[in-house]
């Protein structure tokens, strides 16, 4: 992977981070980290104010970024996102898929089918489509990185989180299959299992503030710091081709579950 600064003869490099909320989350942290390396970063999310916060932070740190609102509702909307990026002429080096449906606990028997389907559409299907479109766009250049954010639930289903686990497991299966198929063409696809609570804004505001209490119980550095996660995403991106990681897990040093 080429990490040298873009020369005058080559198009500016860019990364697309899908599923960005606040700066204090995985998406925001990854966007910030990739921008630090000189890539123009497209931060993609639903909420303009949050995206602007991330763009401002990146610019304050000397990086370049722009915000793209996209709700990933269907194939057309996702294709429009990548068409927009392509139209701006930068070379797309990396795409991060970090979007997921609201993960809230529900008993199995009272889980509405619409909740199952909503989970699957955003957490899994939109990730599949984004991955396909991104890879097609990267193939002509012969290189590129696609990273999916996974979760403990990607590997095992548990009570109260059946819909989330099902969607995450399905996304993982697709990602790893795509990874095997596209590696020979120079496209590096990795699935990152976030195996613990994230010390980010989404956790803090989850369950009417109970999430914040849960983080306190975990103790100092007992939850994954978004910036620490982002560092590993960057290291995945610059891995030499001779030894690519298709899946890795990230877990706080003292997590017990």
């Amino acid at each position, binding site marked *: 992977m080429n990490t040298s600064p873009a020369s005058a003869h080559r198009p500016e490099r860019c990364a697309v981070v899908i599923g960005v909320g606040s700066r204090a989350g995985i998406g925001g942290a990854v966007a910030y980290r990739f921008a630090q390396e000189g890539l123009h970063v497209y931060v993609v999310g639903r909420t303009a104010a949050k995206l602007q916060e991330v763009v401002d932070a990146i610019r304050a740190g000397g990086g370049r970024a722009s915000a793209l609102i996209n709700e990933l509702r269907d*194939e057309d909307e996702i294709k429009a996102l990548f068409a927009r990026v392509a139209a701006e002429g930068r070379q797309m080096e990396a795409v991060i898929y970090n979007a997921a449906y609201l993960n809230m606990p529900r008993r*199995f*028997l009272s889980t509405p089918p619409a909740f*199952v389907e909503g989970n*699957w559409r955003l957490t*899994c299907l939109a990730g599949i489509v984004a991955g396909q479109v991104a*890879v097609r766009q990267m193939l002509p250049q012969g290189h590129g990185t696609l990273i999916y954010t996974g979760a403990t639930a990607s590997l095992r289903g548990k009570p109260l989180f*059946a819909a989330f686990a099902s969607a995450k497991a399905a996304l993982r299966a*697709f990602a790893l299959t795509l990874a095997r*198929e596209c590696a020979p063409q120079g496209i590096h696809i990795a699935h990152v299992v976030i195996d613990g609570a994230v010390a980010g804004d989404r956790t803090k505001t989850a369950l009417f503030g109970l999430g914040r209490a849960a983080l306190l119980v975990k103790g100092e550095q007992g939850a994954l710091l978004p910036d620490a996660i982002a560092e590993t995403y960057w290291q995945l991106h610059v891995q030499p081709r001779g030894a690519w990681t298709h899946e890795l897990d990230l877990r706080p040093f003292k997590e017990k579950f």
Partner: protein
Amino acid sequence: MNTARKCAVVFGVDNTADMAAAIALRAGRGGLHVHVVGSRQEPLNDVAAAIQRSGGRATAMALDAGDRRQVEAFFQRLDSEGYQPVLVAHGGGGPNAQAALETAVAEVEAQWRRLCFAGFLIGQAAIPRMLTFQQGTLLFLGHASSLVPQIGTAAVAAAGAGLRAFAQSMAREFGPKNIHVAHVVLHGAGHGTGHLPSDAVAEACWQLHGQHKSAWTHELDLRP
């Protein structure tokens, strides 16, 4: 006193030689009334007739297991006819050889609805009935690709992995209530062309149904 008639419900019967058909036949031999369910009526009638010829009892029912109303209506009919579903099985089918990059959204969705979402709906409809009698076995059939990615299986791998996660979630939540949920991994089982003999798979499923609750299997792989 429980006067309900114990029955098995086998979803996904598509031809007389597939895994689901073999499970239906085995359950019939085991003395359960078998409800043979699939999307096409003709193979269902054939399988039900085969069960009856060998002295068992069976009913054929065509429905779309990916449609919540149809699944719920079917189980309501079982209630009204006095059946107690003690064994419910779902899944199977085979991988579709297609590159992940070329797999259309419609195909991803069709596989998900058939295998994964249908599994959720069947679980949601079957478990309350099983809870009533505090007894039941729920078997979900997956493939090797449900666990380990295999080139050319993306859509069915995603659906199968999603189904497996549902099975695991149900197993943890309802095991303590005496509902045995297991995921059966079929290696080398294509669309009836696999090398895994369906009657041997059916026997393994029947043994799972008979397991003592102090030592339940939650995942079982089967390979030739």
